[in-house]
């Protein structure tokens, strides 16, 4: 997949356990994600990416930012399987989460979707996917 290419969308027949809030500013992120596109903000002044997307550049403190597509390929920095979780996630236990270093130079922390019995380890190649819940999308990762 190239930058701007589509992430695989995986339908999930329920609502998100802890849905994010959408703001006027982040709405384009969530809209694009529901279409299978990952995008974030880039500073026009210093060129650096932010994640999560921000209406300002945290590095040079300008407000001159633009949306830019990000490719969903990367490497798993680390992961865990959570067996004890908050009340709203109880019906999902156990579940996996991970930290992914994207080829674009960004580190993201997302839900990790493993196949039953699939072995997992840091430094494995991963790709981002979109979990398309009934009420909206969430970013996630699968092993390559």
């Amino acid at each position, binding site marked *: 997949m190239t930058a701007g290419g589509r992430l695989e969308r995986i339908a999930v027949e329920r609502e998100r356990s*802890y849905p994010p809030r959408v703001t006027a500013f982040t709405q384009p992120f969530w809209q694009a994600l529901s279409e299978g596109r990952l995008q974030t903000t880039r500073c026009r002044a210093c060129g650096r990416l932010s994640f999560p997307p921000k209406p300002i550049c945290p590095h040079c403190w300008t407000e001159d930012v633009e949306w830019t597509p990000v490719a969903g390929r990367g490497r798993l920095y680390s992961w*865990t399987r959570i067996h004890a979780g*908050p009340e709203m996630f109880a019906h999902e236990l156990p579940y996996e989460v991970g930290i992914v270093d994207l080829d674009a130079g960004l580190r993201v922390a997302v839900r990790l979707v493993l196949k039953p019995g699939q072995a997992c380890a840091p430094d494995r190649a991963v790709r981002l996917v979109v979990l398309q819940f009934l009420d909206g999308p969430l970013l996630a990762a699968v092993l390559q």
Partner: protein
Amino acid sequence: MMRRAAIIGTAAIPVGRHQCKAGDPIQVVEHEIAARLVIQAMQDAGVDKSEVNAIVCAHPRPYTKQKYFSTFMAHYLRLPCKGIVMETMGNGLTAALAFDKAVDEILLGRAEVALALAVNMEMSVESAVHMRDSVRATGDVDFHAPAGFTPISWYAMDAMRYMHEHGVTRAQIASVAVKNRRHAALNPLAQYRSPITLEQVLEQRPIVEPLGLYEVPPRGDGAACLVIASEQRARALGRPFALVRARGFFHEGAHQISEIPNDMIGFVAAQTAGRIAYEAAGIGPDDLDLVEPYAPCTIVEVLVSEALQLAPRGGGALAAQRGETSLGGRMPIATSGGFTSRGHPSYATPLYSFIELADQLRGRAGARQVADARLALASNELGNYNAALVHILEAVR
């Protein structure tokens, strides 16, 4: 002469279950416990109530019904103050900030004697319900919390990465839990005091892989009070005290996780705050006699011991396994029993760490006394060690 501050009195209740269920006919309330602790700590200090001019409280858990706790306590204890009456909040740092700000009141000359007070009551609330709120404290509520991260899941990912990078086994890291339980057996304030074996640790149910029940912090209630005085006032008492010799702080400018890939398990905030404190004290890590780290999980003790240069990079778990960080070892760490055994009433925990160091430096740690303890370090943190607050204390006898 530069003003310096010292711990001259301490009191705490044993960590454990103190808070009642909401419907119980007889309730335990925080201010009754806190008031008794203040009086006990003041008796230990040997100074008069009229000398106290600052109260800095850790902000209590939301399950503490009485609000505006610090000003309520100023009334409950009839304690007018010219310095400050306030509460601190900073996730895991909360009670460490209470200590730090009470010390500041001494350093600024606003008080000759100040109280650092913390009460953490949460055992009336089930873990799954409690975590409903704590997910909001570990990352971005809209971009991380929806994935289901929990506070200790980040430490679990530290452990996965550490094992991968350094070829260390879970059992080696878990030896920290066995060591700390041996220490806790000697500490009357500890929540869990029965000895455990490595096999028992490894066979517990998984909580956040690779960590099981005995490798993560238990929940508990706790309360503690420290009496802090100017060095001059402390010396006039003619009794042993713990001088605050140096302080270091660093926030890495990242909350929970950096979107710029970094060495997450290097704990750069602890490295930096530690270096600042060592330089300010004019000492090196080898000069320390013992260390109380903020380490909710076994892996965190390993990583912070490396960040503070108490063990080589990748060698922290091995040092624990070899007994180097046990009582009687080269560098005793968590002589209190640490978070997994002494317990972790979060918003009070750092005061328990300072009490352990003060007891050691005042030569009254009983069966877990480190012989001739002279220099000790406490590190406290928030997030995944995104910020660290390090204090070096010195025995004056």
